[in-house]
């Protein structure tokens, strides 16, 4: 069976995790690419001005600026993947290499109908990109599917921060977002990838991400979702070669009746590779959250640790914490810890005795709980994360 036939068949293949979505009910617009800059007021939601974004996708319309001089002089390329596939052999070689198009119906849909919208980022060897590379994905109309496919390649010895904000304008309540992302971190290279999601009720989100980190490379992933959503399911996979490192942080604030199924998988394939997966989950209202972590130890001297902490902030909410460690090498050291709790009365009373009201005490606990210090995050991302956590903590007290 040809690849295309296999992928077509996969259009009916559900994901093993998360709510199954009827993808046929969404409208997919004709993919379009424009080379120009745009302004759109999304800053309040994702803390990123589209004007500083090197790539902006509105639904199935990709808009990108000419590469800024500051990045161009370093040899950094940021272009829609569709353009990159036409122009560069490398992009053609890398696309769909880490994520199989027939993985499930969402990858299949993107492969067949996405038109390879999404961004391609290439960072030349030894380049330390001094400013973050911003990309922005906005689903802009009801009942539409936004399909994005991103490829990032950080060549050997290089360092880059890619920041992606995903959002939806006020008033748009239904839709499907599928984002396929493939990250390649070269030998002794470093990639920090921050993704901040602000969606809405009625929206289904299915990111499909895989990363490969070469010898001595380092990949830091920071993921945050703080908005209501109908359902979101992601389980990104990272393959680590010799001495490579992964630090993956997920911060999830579950809202309304959202179904959040969010995990990270690490495959320690190289000697001395390591992974640390950290998640902080707060479930408000009627939300349901699955926090997954999976580390597979395949090589000697590899190390992995999963930390899943959950806070149940509503009697109607639900959290399932599912850390799994699998060792296939006796010299691989793996561990995990998972705990789910509530904000205990004694914790509040303790903080009250330190001079804080009940609301302030709850806010301090939620804020502190969600604050993960992922190594090497750009200052702007840190500031935005802090602002959002403050917002979540304030809102959380009132729920």
């Amino acid at each position, binding site marked *: 069976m040809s690849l295309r036939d296999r992928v077509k068949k996969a259009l009916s293949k559900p994901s093993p995790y998360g709510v199954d979505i009827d993808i046929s009910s969404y409208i997919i617009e004709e993919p379009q690419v424009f080379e120009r800059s745009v302004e759109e007021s999304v800053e309040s939601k994702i803390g990123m001005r589209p004007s500083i974004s090197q790539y902006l996708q509105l639904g199935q319309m990709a808009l990108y600026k000419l590469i800024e001089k500051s990045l161009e002089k370093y040899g950094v390329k940021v272009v829609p993947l569709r353009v990159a596939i036409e122009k560069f052999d490398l992009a053609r070689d890398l696309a769909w290499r880490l994520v199989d198009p027939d993985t499930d119906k969402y990858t299949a849909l993107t492969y067949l109908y996405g038109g390879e919208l999404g961004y391609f980022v290439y960072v030349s060897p030894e380049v330390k990109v001094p400013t973050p590379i911003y990309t922005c994905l906005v689903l802009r109309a009801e009942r539409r599917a936004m399909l994005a496919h991103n490829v990032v390649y950080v060549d050997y010895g290089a360092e880059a921060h890619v920041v992606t904000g995903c959002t939806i304008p006020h008033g748009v309540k239904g839709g499907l977002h599928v984002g396929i992302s493939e990250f390649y971190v070269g030998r002794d290279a470093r990639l920090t990838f921050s993704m901040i999601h602000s969606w809405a009720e009625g929206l289904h989100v299915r990111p499909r991400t895989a990363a490969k980190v070469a010898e001595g490379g380092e990949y830091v992933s920071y993921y945050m979702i703080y908005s209501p959503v109908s359902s979101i399911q992601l389980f990104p996979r990272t393959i680590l070669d010799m001495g490579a490192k992964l630090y993956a942080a997920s911060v999830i604030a579950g809202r309304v009746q959202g179904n959040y199924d969010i995990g990270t998988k690490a495959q320690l394939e190289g000697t001395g590779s390591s992974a640390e997966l950290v998640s*902080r989950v707060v479930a408000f209202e009627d939300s349901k959250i699955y926090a997954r972590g999976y580390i597979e130890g395949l090589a000697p001297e590899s190390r992995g640790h999963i930390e899943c*902490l959950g*806070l149940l902030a509503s009697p109607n909410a639900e959290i399932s914490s599912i850390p799994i460690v699998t060792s296939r090498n006796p010299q691989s050291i793996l561990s995990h810890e998972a*705990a789910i*709790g509530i904000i*205990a009365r*004694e*914790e509040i*009373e*303790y*903080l*009250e*005795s*330190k*001079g*804080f*009201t009940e609301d*302030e005490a709850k806010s*301090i*606990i939620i*804020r*502190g*709980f*969600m*604050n993960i210090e992922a190594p090497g995050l750009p200052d702007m991302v840190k500031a935005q994360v802090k602002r959002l956590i403050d917002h979540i903590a304030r809102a959380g007290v009132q729920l």
Partner: protein
Amino acid sequence: MCVDDRVVVRNVYLDVSCGEVHVILGPNGAGKTSLLSAIMGLPRVRVCGGTIIFGGEDISGVPAYERARRGIALAHQFVPVIRGVKVANIVKHIIERYGGGGYENILDILDVKHLMGRYLFHGFSGGERRRLELYLTLLQRPKLALLDEPDSGVDVDSLKLIAEAVNYAVRSWSTSMILVTHSGAILDKLYDVTRTHIMIGGQIVYSRDLEATRVVLSRGYIEGLKVLGVSLQ
């Protein structure tokens, strides 16, 4: 003072002036912790009779957070573990509330700097727990510090540091203290003890200077009180 409907502390009169250190000695279950909880305004203890005056004002009906803001701080004997919330985070909030600066000495004396990146009280040794709780208490720069068994379950090195911090706060900031202890382990290391009270069965049965009360530490509460001429009903 009542817990639920049970009277746990009665007929207690304590008058603590600025910079004074009052020690309350007593066996387990004597009502010492309940007394401090009532002064702090913790909801588990209710004032069912009498008043608590602080700075000339009746604060008996004032909630705990307001008492803290007025200058009362409690170093709890039992502290909650708050997973996911780092010590540095709590420190930051307390400094924001009470003003920063001038706390470095206490930080050094109590040797708690290395705990800042840890979750609050999670996996702490007894000494670390007591030292950090005292640090957070003194960080409030209280006018009156209530120290609940600061010498319980700590090693000799931690005990020395805790006593040093108490002495520093009293001498440098004129902080008043009510220090509760059942073992009295810390007493020899304190410079200024204004008065010592012995509490039994929810009542203060004897108040005098430290020297006079040492006999209960050497001979036990029952025999020591007999020596002091106190008869227990």
